[in-house]
């Protein structure tokens, strides 16, 4: 069994409640931080732990915190990014639903390190049912003196509020999230200035993912140095992976970074192999935005080494033969899945979610969707495949925020690795048109 840090207590009956959580050792990190440490010492532990942002970018959390402008007299804000909407990702929802106090504990420690008095949890609108769960947990924390004025008798005070979004993927981008929290459209801001200097209401702000903030509590408990010994190289600690698609056991798994992809897909502890005894065809390992890889490249790198579940190993080979760990939204496809159809659905998603601010993204995602739908429906033209690849190149790197890149990569990688399927669609419109929902094509190449 792999080591569990975040989900260690998940099996305890009633762990959602404050008393049970406290009795099983919860809130000890807050006691430790507030009574025995300075804000800088907390930051230093997080830096030592090597913790990297769990929302997808993998940026070192300690470094992000150290950028926060502490010189200005303005209030400082901590925002928890709970706008989990990357297709394939459902780990934050799981964490908030089953062990909400872990997030609150992590947020108290983080706000202490950042010397912030107000924190917001920005949660996606579709998760309204979680607002009640979080507010109940927050009320319990207030009632027990862990939130509010002078926490545990110290001079540190903190208020945490839940703020619901209303259905916009782009609000997961930190500056769009800040705009949305200010009551505006979720249009990302041009960086710099970074939120660490000019964030919410123009004040210094740190935005961190749910899982990142939750990890701060165990890091303080076991110490940053020990946390850094878990995992593999610069991929320290454990990560929640949400596995879905055509596997026997979809769900949220906590893995020690560094286990092999082969183990993760086939062992009974995790995904339990491909459903209905079928063959593995492809994997998108980090949410829809990262490149898709065919089975042989997913299991082994081009150097014939087993591919590992780490930031570095998954990225090995760059965009030619590698991909990214991203948010840990692990989508598995069996041999019957049509890559054209899947790519079309992702393009439809990005077209729907583009905020419309930058022309390459606003127009490009629309072109991608229309051309892919055409190919998928058996109306594609021979030139369309290269046209798609060309559009991807023109979106990538030409937009304010990374949504443009996220829309370009899945299309570019699908064409790179599964070009024959696209060609088949263009060359055999009669066959493609007759297949309901485009699935289960026995490609005979």
């Amino acid at each position: 069994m792999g080591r569990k840090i975040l989900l260690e207590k998940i099996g305890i009956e009633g762990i959602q409640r404050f008393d049970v959580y406290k009795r099983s050792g919860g809130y000890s990190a807050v006691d430790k931080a507030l009574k025995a440490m300075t804000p800088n010492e907390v930051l230093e532990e997080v830096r030592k732990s090597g913790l990297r942002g769990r929302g997808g970018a993998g940026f070192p959390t300690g470094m992000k915190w150290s950028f926060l402008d502490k010189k200005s007299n303005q209030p400082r804000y901590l925002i928890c990014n709970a706008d989990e909407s990357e297709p394939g990702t459902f780990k934050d929802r799981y964490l908030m639903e089953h062990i909400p106090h872990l997030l609150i504990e992590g947020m108290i420690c983080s706000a202490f390190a950042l010397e912030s008095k107000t924190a917001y949890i920005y949660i996606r609108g579709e998760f309204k049912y979680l607002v009640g769960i979080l507010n109940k947990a927050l009320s319990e924390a207030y009632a027990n003196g862990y939130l509010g004025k002078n926490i545990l008798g110290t001079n540190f005070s903190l208020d945490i509020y839940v703020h619901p979004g209303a259905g916009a993927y782009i609000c997961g981008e930190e500056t769009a999230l800040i705009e949305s929290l200010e009551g505006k459209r979720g249009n990302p801001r041009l960086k710099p200035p970074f939120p660490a200097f000019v964030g919410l209401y123009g004040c210094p702000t740190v935005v961190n993912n749910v899982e990142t903030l939750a990890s701060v509590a165990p890091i303080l408990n076991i110490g940053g140095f020990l946390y850094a010994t878990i995992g593999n190289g610069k991929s320290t600690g454990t990560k929640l992976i949400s596995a879905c698609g055509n596997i026997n056991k979809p769900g949220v798994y906590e893995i020690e970074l560094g286990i092999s992809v082969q183990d993760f897909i086939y062992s009974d502890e995790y995904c339990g192999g491909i459903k209905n005894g079928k063959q593995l065809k492809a994997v998108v390992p980090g949410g829809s935005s990262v490149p898709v890889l065919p089975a042989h490249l997913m299991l082994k790198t081009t150097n014939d080494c087993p591919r590992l579940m780490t930031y570095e190993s998954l990225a090995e080979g760059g965009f030619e033969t590698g991909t990214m760990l991203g948010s840990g939204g692990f989508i598995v496809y069996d041999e019957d899945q049509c890559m054209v159809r899947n790519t079309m659905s992702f393009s439809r998603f990005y077209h729907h979610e583009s905020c419309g601010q930058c022309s390459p993204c606003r127009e490009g995602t629309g072109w991608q969707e229309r051309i892919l739908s055409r190919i998928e429906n058996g109306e594609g033209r021979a030139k369309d495949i290269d046209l798609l690849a060309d559009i991807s190149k023109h979106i990538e790197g030409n937009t304010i925020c990374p949504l443009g890149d996220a829309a370009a990569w899945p299309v570019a990688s699908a064409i790179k690795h599964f070009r024959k399927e696209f060609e088949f669609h263009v060359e055999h419109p009669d066959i493609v048109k007759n297949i309901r929902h485009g699935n289960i094509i026995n490609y005979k190449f």
Partner: protein
Amino acid sequence: MIGNYIQHKIYHKEGKTYSFSETTQERVNEIIARYPRGKQKSALLPLLHIAQEEFGGSLNADIMDYVAVILDIQPIEVYEVATFYSQYYMDKVGKFVIEVCQTGPCLACGADDMIDYLKEKLNIKVGETTTDGLFTLKAVECLGACGYAPVMQINTKFHEQLTKESIDRIIDTLREQAYEPQNNDDKWVEKFCLRK
């Protein structure tokens, strides 16, 4: 508590009156108080959710104007936000809004078949409402429940690992409960505020 208190406001337009109930007004005040003084516009998204819930499930220009009055901002600031986010409905919707996820992972697990089945069962197209005003069918993008695909959300409740049989059960139950006096839906607005 940081913040400011907005007094109870009533909005009249062309003979119609818009006003939140006493309880809702209290909640609205608590929500506005979560944001610093002068930054009450931050409460716009939560308030639009509450207004939509209280005034029949969708928004219109009058309701948005009322929200603008409460927050002391220009109506255009409300319109541009309300039309940006996909959970605010500008057209009338049914009592139950069925949103079926159609993105990659759900698609790989048969979401299209579920949408087809719902169309057939309710006898409507995607985007339409049944003639009895009960159900609106929507195909939406990722709901963040990919491991339990295929998935649909009805109002706030998630229904996961759908099959034709489970859809039959869910829809039939909602039909039976639709005219009962108390709403069977999750009362999320009540849970919107902390009870300190």
